Structures are given as C-alpha cells and as structure tokens.
C-alpha cells in the first residue's frame, strides 16, 4: 500500500556543454559586457568633446577625476558624504517605520483609517517640495530639517503599498489561520504581514528613490552642508569640474542603494515570483 505513496526521485539532467567559441560569444555579448562597453564609449566621447569646451560649462572626465582626488585628499568629500548619508540613514529608517506603521494601522482599524485618511490624502496631493520652506522654519537647516524633509517626501509609497498589501490579503488566506485556531495576533504576524511583504518591499524601493531626491533638495535649500550643499557651492563659483564630483557620488550611491533594495525585494518576494511564473 505504501509503495503507491512514494514519489520517484527527481532525475537531474546535465547542462549542455558549450564550445570555446560559444563561451567567448556568450561573455562578449553578456549584458554586463555590453553595459561596460557602452559606459566606456560614453566616457571617451565625453573626454574628447569636454576638452574642447569652455571649462565654465563643461569638464572632461580627466578634470573631474583630478577634482575628485583633490576633494578626497582635503577631506571635503568625506565630510559632505557623512553629512548626507547620516541623516539619510536615519530618515530612511524612520520612513520605513512610519510608513509601514501607518499602513498597518489604517488597513487594520477602520476608525483610524477614517481619522487619518483625510490628512494622508491631503499630504499626498500637495507636492511635498512646497512644504520644504515651512519644514525648515520648524525643524531648522541641519539634521532634523533634512530628516523631516526626507520622511515627508518618501513616506507615502510605503504607507500606500502597506495598506493595499494588507487589504489585498484574501479572506481564504485568513481562514487558514482561523481554522487552525490562530489568535488575531498570530494571524497578523504569520499570515497578513508575510502576505503583504512583496507590496511593502516595492513601496520601500520607490521610497529610496524619492528619499535621495528629498535629501538633495533639502540640502539645496539649506545650501550649507552635504553633497547637495557642495553642488550649490561649486555651481555658484563656476567650479564645474568639482561640481561634477558630488553629482557622480550621488549617482553611485543611488545605484548601489537601489540595487541593494531590489536584491532584498527579490529575496523576500521569491514566492510571489514563483507564483507569477506558474500562472
């Protein structure tokens, strides 16, 4: 009788062997090889034309590299980076906590939803940039001001996604917990929240992009510290080569952070990916 219960073990098939020529082709035409080549060509063209233009408007990569070395050596870049990244980290952490918290509260308690949603909708509708002078007035130009601006700019996609992620959990899913005698608390932690994770992670990915914009804009306004402050400072004195340094650093930080969040998102939403491939 039990023999009919056994499943045959999976047969593994060896991957097909590639010839040398095929392998070389594969490497040369791999997405990363094409990306690298594209960037290299871009820099060569930039260097060529950059040298022929007025240095007030344009700087070639070699001059930017020189400027970067100088800013690293005299410590200005490190100082600005810390002035930007520290409030960024704190602001991002606060954004996730507040965003997810608000989303959960609004999705789980009808009354609180009705209490909060006029404000959330109003804030969502106002371009948050319009509030920056007011926030600076209240929270100042330094750390607290930057953090507040960042949170106000980045928090909404997380709240909205957490809310819809929780609301999207089907009744059938909750019934699994109920049928097995789970408490409301267990149902929340073991069913509702895990089911909403892919939504929440997508919200966090959007928030990271907005947070970078938020903190740089904040530093433009305050114009006295951080990478954003650096940009304004060098732009005002037409130090174009130096001006490019913080821009490139911001771009690098943005790429690294986005990749990191996307990697996390893929890891935590693997089941959803499987589900999608299946249907």
């Amino acid at each position, binding site marked *: *009788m*039990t023999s*009919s*219960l*056994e*499943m045959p*073990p*999976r047969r593994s098939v060896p991957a097909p062997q590639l010839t040398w020529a095929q392998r070389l082709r594969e490497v040369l035409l791999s997405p990363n090889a094409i990306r690298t080549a594209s960037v290299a060509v871009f820099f060569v063209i930039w260097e060529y034309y950059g040298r022929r233009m007025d240095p007030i408007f344009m700087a070639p990569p070699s001059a930017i590299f020189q400027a970067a070395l100088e800013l690293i050596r005299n410590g200005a870049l490190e100082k600005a980076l810390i002035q930007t990244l520290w409030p960024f980290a704190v602001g991002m952490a606060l954004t996730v906590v507040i965003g997810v918290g608000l989303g959960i509260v609004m999705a789980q308690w009808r009354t609180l939803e009705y209490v909060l949603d006029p404000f959330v909708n109003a804030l969502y509708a106002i371009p948050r940039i319009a509030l920056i002078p007011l926030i600076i007035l209240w929270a100042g130009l330094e750390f607290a001001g930057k953090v507040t601006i960042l949170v106000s700019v980045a928090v909404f996609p997380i709240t909205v996604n957490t809310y819809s992620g929780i609301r999207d959990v089907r009744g*059938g*899913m909750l*019934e*699994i*917990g*109920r*049928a*097995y*005698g*789970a408490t409301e608390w*267990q149902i929340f932690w*073991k*069913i509702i929240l*895990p*089911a909403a*994770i892919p939504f929440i992670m997508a919200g966090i990915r959007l928030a990271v992009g907005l947070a970078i914009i938020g903190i740089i804009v904040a530093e433009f306004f305050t114009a006295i510290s951080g990478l954003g402050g650096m940009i304004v400072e060098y732009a005002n004195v037409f130090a174009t080569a130096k001006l490019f340094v913080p821009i490139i650093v911001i771009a690098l930080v943005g790429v690294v952070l986005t990749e990191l969040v996307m990697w996390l998102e893929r890891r935590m939403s*693997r*089941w*959803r990916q*499987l*589900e999608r*491939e*299946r249907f």
Partner: protein
Amino acid sequence: MKPPAASDGMVVYDGVSKFFPVRARPGREDSAELMVALDRINASVRKGELITLLGPSGCGKTTLLRLTAGLIVADEGRITIAGTPVTGPRKDACMVFQNFGLLPWRTVMGNVEFPLEIDGMGAAERRDRARDFIELVGLGAFAEHFPHELSGGMQQRVGIARALMRKPILIFMDEPFGALDAQTREQLQEDFLAIWSRTGATVVFVTHSIDEALILSDRIFVFETAPGRIRTVVESQVAAERLGGDVRAHPDFGKCRAELREMLRSEP
C-alpha cells in the same frame, strides 16, 4: 422528533439552521430578507467513521462544514463535537481546503509545521513530526519546495499532512480533490483512505461526486436544495471493499450509484 443525544456520536447536529441575508435592492437596504441556507439539520456522525456530505451545488454542504469547524455560527440549534458544543475552531479538529489553502511564502515544511507553530511547540520537535507526516504523504523529497513548485495533487498532499499534524480526532475536508484531474484524484482518494485507516480519526468529507462518496464513505448524507436539508442518510453497501480492494469493481457499485443519482435528481 426526538433530538439525538450528545453522547450518540462524535458530531451531533441538533436542529441546526443557518440563514444568510439576501442582498437588498439598491436604495432599500432595510428590505433585506433572510435566505434559509440550512434548515433544521438533525444528524449524527459516529466516532471513527468517514461520512460524506453529498449534494448539488448551493445546497449548503460548505456551510454545514464551516459551522462544524466553528468558522461561522449557527442561527438555530446546536452542534456538539465529542459532547462539547461548538463555539469556535477546535485544535483537535483540522481542515483540508478545496483550493489547498497553503501559505505560498512557506515551504512544504513551513506549511506542515504551521498548526504546531500556532500551538507554540518548539521548532525541533514540530519539524521532526512534520518530517514524519511529509514522508507519510509521499513528499519526503520535497520538504524544502515552495507550493508553486508542486503539482495540484502534491499540494493537496501537503494540505493533508498539515491536517494530520495535531493528530486530530476529527478532519474536515471540503471537496479536497475537486480541483484535481481524474487520475490524480483517484490516487489521492486511495492514499487518503490508507492513511485515514491508520489514524482512527472521524472524517466529514464534502463532495458533489457520487463516485467519490461511494469510494470513500461509511455513510452518505444526501442533501436537497432550497432550503438545504439532509434528505436521507445512506449506509454504503460497498464500504467494506474500500481498503485494499477496488470499490468500483464491487458488483453492487453500479446499483448504488444509480440509486444515489435517482435520489439526487428527483424532487420529493
């Protein structure tokens, strides 16, 4: 009619009714009427027996199962399990769902250990037991797979393993094999019977397939629709052949099936 005494059986239905509001016409919310989904059900399920609730779509089979599982509350009458009135889900009565009801972010192991995780059992202990039950339903090699990497039949084996984890006295199954193709369904029916015969649990099994009812059950509760009632309770004549043999090959199988079909078709 004398209500059955609570001591008679594992599950006793004593005048159980359930009403659902019919959706009111727009603008006239106060005109909501009640629809009788189940009308004064009196029945009793004996300890250790496997009964099926058989009937056409919409006759209230799922509703009766959910009432028994304590997921919804009866509007009239009462249900007792092992002598205790049902007030909510019980930990010794476990459910197998029609659409498998697996948590897609958990592996097979994670899904099977879920009930004992709810009970607060330590991880090592509950995983040991989960491994045994995963083995029992024939999925030993798939413990770390996710539900969406498995076929429908395999997913429902996970559902069965999970339901067995607490060593329940009662198992509810709502058309558990309804979503499967004919061949897989037969295999699972056979395997489930083999497992069930070793557990001694009482099973309440919902189906709308006459064949499935005959293949599995000791007794068949035949429903009629609008309002939902139990028309008759049929003792299966072929139940003895279930284990090890082929019920379909029983000389009376065709006759029993024809009788049941007649019962389901004719309005009284």
